[in-house]
């Protein structure tokens, strides 16, 4: 090393890394030096080892062999090669480790290095730990044990740096992907990293959001932050000062690109092989003969009976769709006709209604007005000029639609569930009650079309992301749809997998299948579609011939900043005081047994609602869910109370006036409980809830209970609850589109349908957890760590006053029957 260590951010030498105990090497003999202030791109195909390398540079994992120094900390040293039995030892790293020279991973050094390394990952949502932006940014500094004033300053400066200061009170889980990724970057900046490692941070973003993130990275680099960026986008690669390309676990190219802003010279890098950087763009394009893999015999498969050419496959007429929670329509007066056998691309910004249109075509949602016909099936028929919702399908028509229309949702790999690939693909055909021979034929055909025959007996969960996508698409193709709707089928796939999907679309086209593909990529539209339909601004727009659209500007799905947070008296209460008093009032509300007590309780609840400044209508909405329950409870009471005067007799059951009084009383007291609960949840942020929960539990820490960890588990669970809810709906829709149903069929079929729902839900939870654990590592969370809290918990006089009020109320509630009675 000729340079002083101060100018080196990371040095990795002789790195080997295996995920399967040495059978395959994800990294095999990698040397990499990153200088301070450098902007390095790591690139290469899926599975080349670039993400693994990024994880090692970020200090989030240790290699099997080699030497790692991060920001001056010598974190890992193990030299298996020096061992006499190196050749044998390489086959078993664990055994080799015992003989090898070096100290392995040094936790203290890793811990010290990691405090100055930021890491940002692919999935923006999984990096968020809570539902208020400022609190989310505070999490890292809290783990570093910084004091409150410093944390406050760090939040301000890092939100400013990513242009998100206006959103500090907003819920990041409801933001656009681009905004979420900027919050994730702010999360890291608040910890003042010397080096930022980003693993495909734009892979799940649309072009406008990608541009936002890239601009932020340029600014950070200009301010001196070392950046290591994993990407397979050519336009992102060219922004870096240096490009390192990996192939099969080795660095095959390491070149300086020297854009104007780069202030570190990399031309003298010894590992640079001198290839011009332009190679990257060339080698990234798919092989020219990709299309020759379309086997001609598929064209002879004639039982994909094409519709007569003069019949339109899809007719959309004056369709408007408005989400129940939204005022602005997602789709406004859209008309569209797709001729049988045509392949069309649907394009438009995020929020233009592309995915909504797909859901409407597959009868997963019903338009607010207008009519839709798909392959002659009236998916939605407008009821002549009336304001009523269009009529939908009956069960028989729906089953026919499921057999006719295939739907490949976004990220279809998230629907995989079976033990083997072949079984998963067979799910749709089996739901069509085909014979096992026919099912097997369908499965084989679908696997051949996607070139995945060799995966038939593998577990879908052991495959790479790209392979999983192909399996999931095969599962839809096996239903032999005559109309295929695909929502961004190639998003975040590498070139090889993308080429296979394009092949598939061309093959289907040659068989007369009508294909509708939603895409953000003009190149993709150009390559596979006969024409492009642009959606935008909720309006139907012109159909244009296949030409790239003009630049997509401004992500329309970005959320608008909220002015302030609720700062009412109730909202400002100490969360511990609030939780304990509210729960006490809720439990004791069940003691209400007389109209006087009910009046007292109602007065208190009305006062609390007023002091919390929540719109009563909003509360009504939360009670609304329970109305059905009240009715059942009420009926039960009416039937079981036999005292008092009999008013009516329903068969053998007398209905008495006491019964009705009690039914009303019980329902109303239960309503009070629910309103109290709703006020509690509405006025308390999840962070406050968790801080309070943790603080109340903390005495248990003396008994060896991990109260801080349990409180964090609770907090993260509340944060991910809506995410899992949305995913569950997507999974249910996708399996329904393959003909699965829990409500109908034999017990065996129902159990299979239940499995097809449960396994992907667990798979989703595990996938989020894997991503989240890395995000927690990146934010320096550790078991038993001394954390500080940005929100100080302090019991003030106003809290004591509220607690006193609650005590007086409860005493009065209990004393009332004694006084009155």
């Amino acid at each position, binding site marked *: 090393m000729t340079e002083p260590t101060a100018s080196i951010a990371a040095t990795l030498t002789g790195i080997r890394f295996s995920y399967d*105990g040495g059978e395959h090497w994800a990294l095999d003999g990698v040397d990499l030096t990153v200088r301070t202030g450098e902007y390095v791109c790591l690139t290469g195909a899926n599975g080349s080892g670039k993400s693994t390398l990024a994880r090692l540079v970020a*200090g*989030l994992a*240790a*290699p099997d062999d080699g030497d790692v120094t991060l920001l001056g900390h010598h974190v890992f040293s*193990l030299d298996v090669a020096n061992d006499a039995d190196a050749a044998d030892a390489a086959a078993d790293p*664990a055994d080799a*480790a015992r003989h090898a020279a070096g100290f*392995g*991973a*040094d*936790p203290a050094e890793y*811990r010290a290095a*990691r405090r100055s390394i930021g890491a940002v990952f692919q999935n923006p949502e999984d990096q968020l730990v809570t539902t208020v932006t400022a609190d989310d940014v505070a999490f890292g500094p809290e783990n570093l044990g910084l004091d409150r004033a410093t944390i406050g300053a760090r939040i301000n400066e890092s939100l400013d740096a990513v242009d998100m200061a206006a959103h500090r009170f907003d819920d990041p889980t409801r933001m656009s992907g681009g905004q979420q990724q900027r919050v994730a970057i702010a999360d890291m900046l608040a910890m003042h990293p010397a080096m930022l490692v980003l693993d495909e941070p734009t892979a799940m973003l649309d072009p406008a959001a990608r541009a936002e993130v890239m601009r932020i990275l340029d600014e950070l680099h200009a301010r001196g932050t070392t950046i290591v960026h994993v990407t397979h986008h050519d336009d992102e690669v060219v922004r870096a000062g240096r490009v390192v390309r990996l192939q099969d676990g080795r660095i095959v190219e390491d070149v300086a690109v020297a854009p104007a802003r780069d202030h570190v010279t990399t031309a003298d890098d010894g590992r640079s092989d001198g290839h011009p950087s332009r190679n990257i763009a060339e080698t990234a394009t798919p092989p020219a003969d990709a299309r020759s893999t379309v086997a001609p015999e598929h064209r002879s498969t004639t039982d994909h009976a094409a519709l007569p050419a003069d019949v339109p496959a899809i007719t959309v007429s004056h369709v408007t769709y408005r989400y129940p929670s939204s005022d602005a329509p997602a789709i406004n007066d859209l008309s569209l006709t797709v001729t049988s056998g045509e392949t069309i691309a649907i394009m438009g910004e995020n929020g233009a209604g592309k995915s909504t249109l797909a859901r409407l075509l597959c009868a997963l949602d019903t338009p607010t007005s207008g009519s839709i016909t798909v392959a002659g099936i009236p998916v939605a028929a407008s009821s002549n000029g009336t304001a009523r919702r269009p009529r939908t399908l009956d069960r028989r028509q729906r089953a026919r639609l499921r057999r006719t229309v295939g739907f490949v949702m976004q990220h279809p790999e998230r629907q995989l569930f079976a033990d083997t690939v072949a079984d998963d693909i067979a799910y749709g055909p089996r739901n069509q009650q085909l014979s096992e021979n026919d099912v097997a034929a369908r499965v084989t055909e679908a696997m051949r079309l996607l070139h995945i025959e060799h995966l038939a007996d593998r*577990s879908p*969960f*052991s495959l790479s992301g790209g392979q999983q996508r192909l399996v999931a698409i095969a599962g839809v193709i096996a239903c032999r749809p005559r109309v295929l709707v695909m929502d961004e089928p190639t998003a975040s796939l590498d070139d090889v997998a993308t080429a296979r999907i394009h092949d598939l679309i061309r093959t289907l086209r040659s068989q007369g299948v009508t294909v509708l593909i939603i895409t953000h990529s003009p190149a993709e539209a150009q390559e596979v579609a006969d024409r492009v339909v642009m959606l935008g601004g909720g309006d139907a727009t012109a159909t244009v011939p296949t030409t790239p659209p003009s630049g997509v500007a401004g992500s329309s799905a970005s959320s608008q900043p909220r002015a302030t947070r609720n700062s009412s008296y109730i909202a400002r209460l100490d969360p511990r005081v609030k939780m304990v008093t*509210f729960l006490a009032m*809720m*439990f004791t509300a*069940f003691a209400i047994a007389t109209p006087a007590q009910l009046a007292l309780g109602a007065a208190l609840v009305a006062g609390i609602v007023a002091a919390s400044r929540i719109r009563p209508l909003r509360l009504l909405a939360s009670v609304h869910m329970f109305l059905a329950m009240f009715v059942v*409870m009420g009926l039960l009471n009416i039937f*079981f109370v036999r005292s008092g005067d009999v008013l009516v007799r329903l068969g053998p059951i007398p209905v008495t006036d006491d*019964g009705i009084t009690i039914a009303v009383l*019980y329902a109303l007291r239960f309503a009070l*409980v*629910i309103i109290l*609960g*709703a006020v509690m949840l509405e006025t308390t942020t999840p962070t406050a809830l968790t801080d309070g929960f943790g603080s109340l539990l903390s005495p248990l820490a003396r008994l060896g209970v*991990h109260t801080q*960890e349990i409180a*964090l*588990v*609770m907090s993260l*669970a509340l944060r*991910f*609850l809506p*995410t*899992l*809810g949305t995913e*569950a709906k997507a999974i249910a829709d996708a399996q329904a589109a393959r003909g699965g149903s829990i409500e109908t069929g034999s017990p065996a079929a129902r*159990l299979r349908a*239940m*499995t097809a729902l*449960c*396994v992907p*839900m*667990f*798979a989703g939870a595990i996938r*989020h*957890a894997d991503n989240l*654990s*890395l995000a*927690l590592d990146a934010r320096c*969370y*550790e*078991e*038993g*760590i*001394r954390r500080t809290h940005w929100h100080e918990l302090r019991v003030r006089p106003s809290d004591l006053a509220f607690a006193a009020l609650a005590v007086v109320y409860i005493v009065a509630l209990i004393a009332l029957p004694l006084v009155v009675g």
Partner: protein
Amino acid sequence: MSVSSHTTNATSTSSATSSRPDTAHSTGVADSGRWSTRRIAMYALFVALAMATSFVEFPIIPGIQWLKYDPSGIVALIAGFAFGPAAAAIVSVLGFVPHLFMDPWGTLMAVLVALFLSVPAAVIYRKNRTRNGAIIGLIVGAVCALAIAIVGNLIVTPIYAHMTVAQVAALIVPALLPFNLLKFAIHGVVTFLIYKPITTLLDK
């Protein structure tokens, strides 16, 4: 160092004594040990899944509308099989917390039933990690949960409805028993069917 202070510090001590931390590719910081970040994240997502499924309630026996089935018990059972009795307990308790602010007494009972179902099952499966162990665990858990469900109903139902304990007791054979038997049967069969693919995912 003040970084890892007041509670157990097993992670760093164990890794300091061996040439490598206990897990392959572990840096020894927070990725291994009893409460690793991965474990915290897994518990959190399982709790979230239990919360999400606890809101999916539907009657399973025609005519007994007020007893509703919810699949959250499956999540607690899977958590117990995968991570042990402590995980089962955490998922059973925390998974019902959102309900505490809507239906306090009913929630207490639901938590007890979930605990008595999943913790014994997890304890038995941990001692005998075979298909038989899983089946025995599910059956023992179901018997414990059945007992607590009936006792719980005797106590809680009179709080919601104007009924005496005797009136509730009269419902045991026509309603409570068949409902709970069917509920635990569904829990058990589904858990048994989906556990294998889920372990494949966890071991990945």
